[in-house]
């Protein structure tokens, strides 16, 4: 019965998505490779990128089909379970990738794509199976987290990007006394809270060193440094906009884009959106300098693998799909991806041409910080992100202490997380 229901669902989804137009080999001998993804806003850019591939591979058409972001995981799972699914698919990373692998719908790429050997191991960790350790996708992007600032407002108040924590708070004080909100921050859309916590608190809890100790079982979230990182993050609320608990993600972005707030802690992906909203906006980025009592005396740039392109195990065009996946691991694709989509490519040897992206990438390469909740603690149920976002909201609302939240986080992940030993 389950199988039947799955087939019916897969057929319905695929028929609706493709207008019943299957890929494959039409009468003229050309083949079409269907690539599924969730970036509806990037369809034109992807088609432009794939045109380069089509030029060098006569007879191969690559079609990028985008689905609604929030429904993509379910659509992909049903698509990969049927015969009318994609040939290649954009895949989420870390824990969110595991259901697709567990369903058996993806091809392991170890030994199939030589260029994957040149990817850093930390990047490939984002696209590995937790069960068999194999790699199931070609990573396409690295996302980094920063404080984005308004250059005009900084200049108007004689503030420079901070080199120390004290510089940052002094700058925030200056802005606040001038009637400018220092930080536009969302609390209502609480999925942003673990991101904000990494931006402000990674240096305090120890960043990559603490991560390593956590993974080995030598540290816990209840350790004083992690608790202190939550307190440090909550301490920055005095620089946030009034009534911050009711401010949504879009409102916070609008506060920054409209110049009512001078800084926005968020991901590098926000840059393109701010430019779209206000084309002449002048932005800069910086990362939070080591706070008092920091366990890392370097300015960390937290980041993570955003996703990858994988090959369906059911595609009848496996050889051609693998060939395209190999190209996606090449510098040519990486550079085109970075240039067309204004993102940081995960392919080694590519450098973003956009100056801010370049700065973000160099910061990440020099002193990377983890995104613990999406990466290592996103593999089980309940996920670290789910626990921490609810917990951080409680701290910001004054309903729980940082220690209680850290304790709840540890209790929740202990149900499934097993240290390396």
């Amino acid at each position, binding site marked *: *019965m*389950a*199988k039947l*229901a*799955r087939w019916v669902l897969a057929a319905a989804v695929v028929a609706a998505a493709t207008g019943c137009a299957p890929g494959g080999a039409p009468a003229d001998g050309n083949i079409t490779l269907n690539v599924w993804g969730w970036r509806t806003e990037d369809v034109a850019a992807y088609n432009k990128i794939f045109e380069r591939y089509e030029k060098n591979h006569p007879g191969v058409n690559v079609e990028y089909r985008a689905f609604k972001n*929030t429904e993509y*995981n*379910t659509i992909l*799972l*049903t698509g*990969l*379970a049927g015969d009318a699914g994609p040939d290649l698919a954009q895949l989420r990373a870390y*824990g969110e990738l*595991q*259901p*697709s*692998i*567990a*369903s*058996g*719908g993806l091809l392991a790429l170890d030994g199939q794509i030589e260029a994957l050997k040149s990817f850093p191991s930390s990047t490939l960790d984002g696209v590995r199976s937790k069960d068999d350790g194999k790699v199931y996708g070609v990573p396409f992007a690295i996302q980094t987290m920063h404080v984005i600032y308004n250059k005009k407002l900084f200049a108007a108040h004689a503030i420079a990007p901070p080199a120390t924590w004290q510089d940052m708070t002094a700058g925030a004080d200056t802005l606040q006394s001038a009637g400018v909100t220092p930080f536009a921050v969302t*609390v*209502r*859309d*609480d*999925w942003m809270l673990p991101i904000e916590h990494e931006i402000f608190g990674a240096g305090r809890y120890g960043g990559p060193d603490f991560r390593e100790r956590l993974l080995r079982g030598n540290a816990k979230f209840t350790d004083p440094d992690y608790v202190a990182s939550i307190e440090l993050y909550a301490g920055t609320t005095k620089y946030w*906009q*009034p*009534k*911050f*608990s*009711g*401010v*949504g993600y879009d*409102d*916070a972005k*609008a*506060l920054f884009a409209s110049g*009512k707030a001078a800084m926005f802690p968020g991901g590098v992906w926000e840059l393109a959106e701010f430019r779209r909203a206000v084309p002449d906006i002048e932005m800069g980025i910086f990362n939070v300098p080591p706070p008092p009592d920091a366990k890392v005396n370097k300015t960390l740039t937290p980041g993570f693998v955003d996703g990858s392109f994988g090959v369906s195990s059911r595609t009848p065009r496996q050889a051609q799909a693998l060939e395209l996946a190999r190209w996606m691991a090449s510098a040519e694709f990486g550079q085109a991806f970075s240039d067309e989509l204004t993102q940081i490519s995960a392919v080694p040897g590519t450098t973003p041409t956009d100056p801010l992206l370049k700065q973000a990438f160099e910061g990440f390469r020099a002193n990377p910080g983890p995104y613990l909740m999406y990466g290592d603690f996103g*593999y*089980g*149920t*309940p*996920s670290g992100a*789910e*626990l921490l*976002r*609810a917990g951080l*909201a*409680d701290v*910001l*609302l004054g*309903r729980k202490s940082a220690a209680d939240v850290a304790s*709840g986080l540890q*209790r*929740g992940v202990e*149900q499934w997380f097993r240290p390396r030993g």
Partner: protein
Amino acid sequence: MSRRVCSAVSSSGSGLVAKRGAGSSGRVGWTAFFCGPAALLYTVFVVVPLVTALWYSIFSWRGTTQGPLSGLDNYATVLTAYPYQDQLLRAFGHNGVFFVGTMLVQNTVGLALALLLHRAPLGRRLFQTLYSLPYLISPLVVGYLWSMLLSPSFGPVNAVLEAVGLDALARPWLGDPGTALPVVVLVNAWQWVGGPMLIFGAALAAVPAELEESARIDGASAWKTFWTVRFPLILPTVGVVTLLTFIGTFNVFDLVFALGGSSGGPGQAMDVLGLLFYRLAFQGGVNAIGLSSALAMLMFVFVFGISLLVDRMLRRREVNP
């Protein structure tokens, strides 16, 4: 209802059959002919999904691949594992508050409006239409609309309060756990108040005018006439509205999702069972299908059971004119 229709069809069929002198096979044929399509649709769209959810809930899953039979493990996880146990209780409580709040605000105001418009010579149609207009908008749109109106940064609600010197009342409506759930109740009532108003209006129209006339002649006040004449006679309608409200408030998803996101806003102050189901289904990891199906079954059993119980209780209290 379909059973009653089928019984009627069956008896009328038997009349035809008797006249023609055919046997019981003709009766069965007619019954199947008229009930078959409805029964088929009901089976495909109601019975199959329910049985499928039950089936899914007793297996462990790896993505979309069905794993071994897990019995009641998924139910045990939803009911006892941290933090789902806490979230389930809290969400359940919020659904309860939402139901009570909706009964108090939406249905009471709906009844009051119906009484005001009852036998009103002028403007009844106009006001009925005006109060029912929000009905035509999707709850998602209503939710996003009100989240903009209530935004502390750009929303006009706080701006108006501040402009008239009521700064103390301006607050982060959807970000304050003390106001978030009452706001959901009010926004929901704003959208749906036209429903009970129309239903109660129709019920009031069916109350015999001579009964009200007699009460008035006997010197009963309007208040007393309402409680002793009108209300007992519209009690069946109150029962129906109560049941519909119960089912609607315990299955609510779209409005709360639009106002508070998948976790129900800061502090999960607006978290309800529908959102918990969404989180388990779409953020529940490898065994998402098993866990979310278990919660769906729990919700169904609770709503179905209580609906039956309330229906029985209300039927006993019905009064006929």
